[in-house]
């Protein structure tokens, strides 16, 4: 692989070409699958992190099992999942145990209606453990007195989750949502190592890699990179504004809630006074 030829200034030609070529922006649509995957991944990680942060027998072993995929190198993952999804192999066998018939199952990596989901699945498999460890770390830093107080007030586990855990680790959840959405725009590894972008699984970066290093159109590929970077920055800024707006609203609610609580207290005091007055008679 070599870069041949002299440099020539072409102005904005490469940038225009990015928008004219069909393959570039079609590939960007695949990011939607990965966004969906990251929603699944983050909620799964949050759910498991919450469970593991309560008392669980063998919690460390479960945590280890779920985290280990993160430490496997990309190529090994490629082989593992080519093997996993092959017709009649691991995944099909497990589904057959659950009562599915082999004839009704699709070809996981060849069928265009399903192969992107299969790839997204591998990405969820690889990263949910890591997100889980992050969330556990954040949950552990929550003051344990809060749980005790909540228990005394009779809050159940779900209420503890909703009113203590989620507000305390809001920042890290936000951070992970932002990271995973920009991450899904730049999804690369699963299609690159498992299908090499065949059968309509080539994401934007896979197409870009192909253009840069196989077709050697470096200028065009660089333009693609810059365009995607701009898109990522715009999306990130929008998300930051969005989260600011959402959190501001929830803070606005707080004073009103305080007022309501005060009113409730006053009412109950009055009621008690009335009752005691009635008892006095």
């Amino acid at each position, binding site marked *: *692989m*070599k*870069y041949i030829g002299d440099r020539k200034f072409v102005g904005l030609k490469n940038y225009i070409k990015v928008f004219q070529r069909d393959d570039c922006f079609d590939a960007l649509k695949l990011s939607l699958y990965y966004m969906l995957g990251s929603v699944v991944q983050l909620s*799964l990680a949050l*759910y*498991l992190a919450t*469970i*593991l942060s*309560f008392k*669980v027998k063998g919690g*460390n072993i*479960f945590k*280890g*099992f*779920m985290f*280990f*995929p993160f*430490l*496997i*190198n*990309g*190529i*090994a993952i490629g*082989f*593992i999942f080519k*093997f*996993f999804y*092959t017709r*009649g*192999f*691991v995944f099909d*066998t*497990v589904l057959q145990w659950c009562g599915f018939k082999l004839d009704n199952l699709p070809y996981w990596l060849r069928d265009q209606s399903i192969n992107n989901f299969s790839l997204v699945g591998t990405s969820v*498999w690889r990263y949910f*453990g*890591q997100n889980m*460890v*992050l969330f*556990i*770390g*954040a949950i552990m830093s929550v003051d344990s007195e809060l749980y005790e107080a909540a228990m005394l007030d009779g809050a*159940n586990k779900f209420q503890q989750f909703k009113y203590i855990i989620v507000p305390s680790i809001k920042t*890290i959840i936000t*951070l992970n949502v932002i990271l995973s959405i*920009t991450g899904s725009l*730049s999804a*690369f590894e699963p299609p*690159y190592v498992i299908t090499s972008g065949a059968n309509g699984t080539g994401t934007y*970066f896979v197409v*870009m*890699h192909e253009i*840069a*290093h196989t077709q050697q159109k*470096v200028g065009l590929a*660089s333009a693609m*990179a810059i365009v995607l*970077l701009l898109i*990522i*920055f715009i999306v*990130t800024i929008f998300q930051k504004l969005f989260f600011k707006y959402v959190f501001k609203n929830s803070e606005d609610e707080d004073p009103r809630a305080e007022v309501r609580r005060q009113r409730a207290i006053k009412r109950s005091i009055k009621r008690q006074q009335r009752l005691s007055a009635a008892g006095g008679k």
Partner: protein
Amino acid sequence: MDVLDKIGKVVFTFVKYLSLVFFSFCAVLPVVSCVITAFKTDEEYHTTNVMTMPKSWLYFDNFIRAFKQAGMARAFANSLIILVCVLFFSVMIGTQLAYVLNRFKFFGNTIIRALFLFATQLPGVAMQIAVYEIMYKLGFINSLMGYIIMMCGTDIISIYIYIQFFENISYSLDESAIIDGASYFTIFYKILFPLLKPAIVTSCILKGVGTYNEYYCASLYLQDKTKYATVATSLYTFVGPLGSEYNLICAGVIISLLPAFLVFVLCQKQIYSGLTVGAVKG
């Protein structure tokens, strides 16, 4: 109420363990199926279902064959060289940089930190197009040294780990050393560097696993796949002619996993804490 409470608790415990077991199963299944297949003879592999257990758990032929075929001896040697150099230099560069950023106030301090944060946002694959050209001009394609130099590049997460650690080391140590006449270099190497040890261990484990697993740049820059293969890229040998000999491929995959697995079993705590620190700060 009591009965309801108890039922609720039992259901909660049940759901808790059920989901843990289920998702652990999902996480482990692909790897376990590989382990099972790696122990099968060719004949066994072709005749039995992938999920049936192998006849003998002591059949290591696949591992030996895979090791030889992929030239893994060479690959492990290369990976070891890369790992040692990269860890040494990135610890040196990283700790010194963190020392400067944490202990000195100067024009550009915040700019450097902001640039680091900016750099974390850039997706690596996109950058490699530009980096490739630089590497090409420098003659670093197909050179172990070039690859090592590129991988030594500042690793933001470990720098954040160091900076956070420096924040917890009291300034009075520096001050008393300065009063005793120590130079900045002596302060750094004699006093602060030894105190940084836990942070260095953590970041070395993270960076080490990352470097060991790195394959994209390795396949891009180390194109001579026999001479300069790393453990990760040596697996590429199995792509072509052995397309469906999965018992062999699985054995290769398992061999390449073993070092990461060992590190994981031995240093779980550091990995978890390192990840959390890096992410919260970054």
